[in-house]
């Protein structure tokens, strides 16, 4: 589902943010991307979204060589990739329902599809009672659930999350992770960038560890790391 070959990324003239990354992620996998702040996790995610182009190497996502992908086709690639961020990125003047519906409206889905899929996905994330609430009326965990609902409402085959629990307390984070697990069980490939050690250690999923832009470890049923 995701293949990276000898991928490097250098911002400007700085030292590279990613070096020679070789990674294969199969359909339906659940993968943690771990590393200190500044190790290159966000760069990794943004390359897969084609928010960034790599300085060198080849990236294939959902069967498409995204380095060679024409600009006008990028939106269609992104419809196959749900994204979740630390800061939720919800629109403050829209309710939970409207925030999720917005994602379908702007890719031209019909009213009928919106009316059936939005409540369904909000139920999946456990927010059936908060559909009419605005973001400032929701807790951090609830806001993150809305943003996950928005990322997943179009049933993309891939879900990327960049520090999704960075702003949440441990108990809430656990709830969010189990939600990712449920989504992964539906066959969706899930990639979560995090530096939440306990979470990674408790879930026992595949772990890719980055350090100064190098992949230093790629381990199935792994833990966050040794020592530090």
């Amino acid at each position, binding site marked *: 589902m995701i293949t990276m070959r000898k991928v490097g990324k250098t911002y400007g003239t700085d030292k590279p943010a990613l070096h020679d990354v070789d990674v294969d992620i199969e359909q339906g996998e659940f993968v943690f991307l771990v590393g200190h702040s500044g190790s290159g996790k966000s760069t990794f995610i943004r390359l897969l*979204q084609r928010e960034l182009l790599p300085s060198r190497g080849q990236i294939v996502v959902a069967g498409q060589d995204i380095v060679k992908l024409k*600009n*006008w086709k990028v*939106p*269609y*690639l*992104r*419809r*196959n*990739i749900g*994204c979740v961020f630390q800061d939720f*990125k919800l*629109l403050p003047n829209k309710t939970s329902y409207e925030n999720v519906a*917005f*994602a379908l*409206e*702007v*890719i*031209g889905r*019909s*009213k009928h599809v919106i009316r059936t899929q939005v409540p369904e996905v909000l139920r999946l994330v456990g927010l059936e009672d908060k559909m009419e609430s605005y973001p400032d009326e929701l807790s951090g965990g609830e806001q993150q659930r809305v943003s996950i609902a*928005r*990322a997943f409402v*179009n049933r993309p085959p891939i879900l990327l999350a960049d520090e999704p629990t960075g702003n949440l307390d441990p108990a809430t984070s656990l709830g969010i992770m189990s939600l990712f697990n449920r989504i992964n069980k539906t066959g969706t490939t899930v990639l979560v960038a995090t530096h939440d050690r306990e979470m990674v250690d408790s879930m026992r999923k595949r772990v890719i560890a980055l350090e100064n832009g190098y992949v230093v470890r790629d381990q199935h049923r792994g833990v966050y790391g040794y020592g530090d």
Partner: protein
Amino acid sequence: MAINVGYFIKESVTSFRRNWVMSLGAVITIYLSLLLVGLSMVTGYLVSEVVKSVEDKVSIQIFLKDGAATADVEALQGWLLRDELVEAVNYVSKEQALERFKEEMAGSPEIIDSMRENPLPASLDVTLNDPRTVQEMVERIKAQELFVQVCDRPDDPEQSLKYGQQIVDRLFAFTRIVRLVGVVFVAMLASVSLIFINNTIRLAIYARRKEIGIMRLVGASNSFIRAPFLLEGVLQSLLGAGIAILTIVAIQAAVLPRLQEALPFLPVDVSTAAMLQLSAVLLGAGILIGLLGSGFALRRYLKV
């Protein structure tokens, strides 16, 4: 796509209200530039109508010197009548010319009183079958020996001929100047309106940067993201164009009847067909300005 049209219009209206100062500036400058375009088109139209009516009446006057031999004048008249371009030739004597002049100048008798003798020459008035052949006929007359013999000013025969072409040429020279000045003004106003639209769209993009970010994230197509902004620019221009058309219609209704009263001998009227054509041109120009202005802004400020 039915849902999208409503969505785009809602977005444009919201955005217009959010940036109403800039939007109003854009509408006003577009209005002014299109109003100028429209007014100069109406003027041009009226002038060309007048020119046409002058052409209808066009004739060539050949002024004769005092004491020209009657035989020569009659020979020239005969030669003219034989020419296939000529419809009629009318001899006007010195006395008749003076009578005509007195009639025309009835409003200012002091001019007539101040004339001691009759300064007006006799003339041959030549009417043509087709007014477009005036120049050609003038050339034929100038080449004619008889003409040089009898004309009022043998030293400069050209001066003994008077024909409508000169009026027509002067009218055209006048409209050329009007048009040039108009083009300069319109170009200035159009660039100001482009700057205004550019700015409103920039502000609109800024105000909606969060939505835009999410649209890109969830895979809204580039055209879908751009459409509301393009539409906003076009709506502003159409508004300006619409008001400009209404103003021109109002001016036409208020001013033309009075102008017609003042100039009863000229056809001062704009046909409905010409008005429709004018409206179409202004709306088209409006759409073009709107698309250009927001297009520039999108290229510069909206990276999709």
